[in-house]
């Protein structure tokens, strides 16, 4: 009885959070002000963090929270504030182009959904190993099997940092 109630509460929680994800994602692309877009994007990422927690992927939930909602969003907001873009003066595309784009996106969605329906798998997502997404388990995989890619990704981050500094500093010779 109690377990059944629990299942119902958590299923409805999933559908509610999924609805919020879609709503905020729509608001990201349809709000006129770029600052509002960034704020809705933060909310979308927050709902994704809740999805990760529901899947018991605790490590990814924390990383998503810190990297996306912390670092990346601060970067976006800083650039928007730096360029002084917080005004609604964005030139808009023609209505025909907008309608065509929405139809195109809808066609993509319809194709994916139809292929999923044709596939016909509908088993529930069951966690075979409950501690799959915990730091203890993921750390063993990350530093065992994936040690070389992990080290290479540090090289990638370093080169990205150098590239960003090189691109964003003012070119003194031209100015």
């Amino acid at each position, binding site marked *: 009885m109690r377990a059944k109630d629990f299942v119902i509460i958590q299923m409805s929680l999933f559908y509610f959070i999924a609805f919020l994800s879609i709503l905020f994602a729509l608001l990201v692309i349809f709000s006129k002000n770029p600052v509002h877009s960034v704020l809705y994007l933060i909310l979308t990422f927050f709902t994704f963090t809740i999805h990760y927690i529901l899947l018991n992927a605790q490590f990814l939930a924390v990383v998503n929270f810190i990297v996306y909602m912390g670092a990346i969003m601060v970067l976006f907001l800083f650039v928007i504030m730096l360029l002084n873009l917080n005004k609604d003066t964005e030139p808009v595309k023609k209505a025909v182009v907008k309608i065509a784009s929405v139809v195109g996106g809808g066609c993509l969605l319809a194709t994916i959904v139809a292929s999923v329906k044709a596939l016909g*798998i509908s*088993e529930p997502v069951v966690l075979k190993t409950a501690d799959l997404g915990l730091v203890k388990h993921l750390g063993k995989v990350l530093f065992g099997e994936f040690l070389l890619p992990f080290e290479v990704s540090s090289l990638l981050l370093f080169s990205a940092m150098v590239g960003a500094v090189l691109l964003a500093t003012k070119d003194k010779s031209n100015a």
Partner: protein
Amino acid sequence: MNTLTQNIQTIPLNHYIILCAIIFAIGVTGVLIRRNAIVIFMSVELMLNAVNLLLTVFSAYRGDATGQVFVFFIMALAAAEVAVGLSIIVMIYRNTNSLDINVLNRLKH
């Protein structure tokens, strides 16, 4: 925490796939309908996140931790991509004084 999440897994896999497909399609639509470079960039982030969530779902579904490690690498890559991309956007703004991507048509000539 473990007891909380062991009971939850009654959601069909299809619903997760459809949710991620919807978010991905919203990202594609956002890239197509907007002209502001930063908003286009944010739509790309939406698409990346939809794929991340789907990888995590399949990882949990198959009981294989590799998918979650992949998501971790994708997040590291997204951080690098955002840093470089935003600095390119700052450069575009310095050179053209706008973020309208139609200005970049000049690259053709």
